[in-house]
């Protein structure tokens, strides 16, 4: 199945055959999961999102338009799910509880560097959570998924201009959060290019 395009795989699904399920999952699970996890900062919710998104993709395959990009469609189902999730009041309280998941740091790094790297991660996580859901969605799709503003607009259901503003506002907030923290106290950082 590896040699088939997304569109070809979806055509098979649309015909009622679920055999491409695992192939599609393998192609997109990492991107979708990371997006949901960063959006919600909650591993359990991200797993639920995955389940719903992929099952929906299979069961409502007919909603997929053959000429669209499968990734855009999947991200838009995921983003909808995540927005809904956050809208439910009782989920908000859970939001910040999740433990930050980090990959083991490479052994080459000194303990100081390891610590610093973890701190960097935590700062970024915190800064992202400080954004509005719309801004967070836009920056996650732009920075980590490399999507164009047109694609993000399609996923978020807004205009390209709105995406541009959201990303800009997000960057302004992140810049303040990340660079002011960086120079706070007697620890400071200079970047030279």
């Amino acid at each position, binding site marked *: *199945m*590896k040699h088939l395009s997304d569109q070809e795989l979806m055509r098979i699904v649309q*015909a*009622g*055959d*679920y*055999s491409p*399920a*695992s192939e599609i*999952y393998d192609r997109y*699970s*990492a991107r979708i*999961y*990371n997006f949901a*996890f*960063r959006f919600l900062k909650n*591993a359990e919710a991200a*797993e639920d999102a*995955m*389940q719903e998104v*992929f*099952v929906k993709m*299979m069961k409502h395959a007919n909603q997929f338009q053959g000429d669209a990009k499968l990734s855009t469609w999947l991200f838009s189902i995921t983003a909808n799910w995540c927005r809904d999730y956050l809208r439910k009041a009782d989920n908000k309280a859970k939001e910040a509880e999740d433990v930050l*998941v*980090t*990959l083991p740091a*490479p*052994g*080459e*790094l000194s303990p100081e560097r390891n610590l610093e*790297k973890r701190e*960097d*991660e935590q*700062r*970024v*996580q915190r800064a*992202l959570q400080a954004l509005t859901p719309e801004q967070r969605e836009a*920056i996650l799709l*732009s*920075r*980590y998924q*490399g999507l*164009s*503003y047109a694609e993000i607009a399609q996923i978020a259901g807004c205009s390209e201009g709105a995406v*541009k*503003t959201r*990303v*800009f506002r997000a*960057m302004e907030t*992140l*810049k303040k959060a*990340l*660079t002011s923290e*960086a120079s706070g106290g007697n620890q400071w950082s200079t*970047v030279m*290019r």
Partner: protein
Amino acid sequence: MVDCHAMRESMPQLLTESLDQGRRELAHQHIESCPACTAEWNAYRETWTLLGALPEVEVPARVRERFLAELAPAAAVDNVVPFRRRVATKWVAQAAAVALVVGTSFYAGHRSRGVEITPTKATVERMPAYSIAENRVLPASALSPDIQGRPNIHNVQFVDPDASDNKIGLAFDVTSHVTVTGSPTDRSMIRLLAYVLENENSDVSPSRTRAIEWVKQTYSDPQNADPEIASALAKVLRNDSHTGVRISAVDTLKTLPGSVSADTKAALIDALKSDPNPAVRIKAVEALANIARSGATMDAATLDTLRQKAAQDDENLYVRLKAGEVLSSIRPQ
């Protein structure tokens, strides 16, 4: 006169290089000439870079299982050939149905009954002597590559009915004796093989080592190279308690062509680091040497393991020298 605010609004697009050439040049010209925007641009880039500090999180394996389980809840019946049929191949389902019916009388119907000498259960069995007529031969292309449940596969044998047709076959007992034939690159065939290799409970008779050697013969051909086979072998290397099997697995990994996944590389590193058998460690380091020679880069953790091995006093000298040899041919990441 360019508006500084508008300029800053397009800085994120400048970062992702999604501005067209003309606007991009204009933006850079402005940034270079406007000190405030230069500072702003630097801060943007720093922020953008810092955002990269967030690691990619691995998707837990259970998520995949849960998803696939929901799609086919009915298929997980024990001891049934657990391949879901494709729409177009109804006869496979019929074969499976037959398999289910004969399944309970498997020993009576498809094998000569074990010779019972003592009043206890039969412990000596006749060698299976199947006739072609008793086999159910399924083309791999008619099967879904998703193996559901954890079927107990026994008596696995590798067959090559026609050496000239570039097809391979895998025969085994589930509820009846099944032979699956197909191209070595067929996804269903690969999944099935990977399942056989990884499944600790499967009693690959007569020998798992031989099963792996068969895989080596088939998949050392660059035409058949497949990362899934490599990853199955990596799992065997990690998990099998049987030294002979681990030696065969790592030996086969050494000969497989094509790119190596991070997971396979990690399994080799772990084997080099901690496998109790020196032959496994030798082959792991030789496999890493092959990877290094193919120009692949090695990450810091790999380099550290190699350095530790090269310097480890109580390690076999040959392993140490090989680790040194790998280091000398490596390109750091």
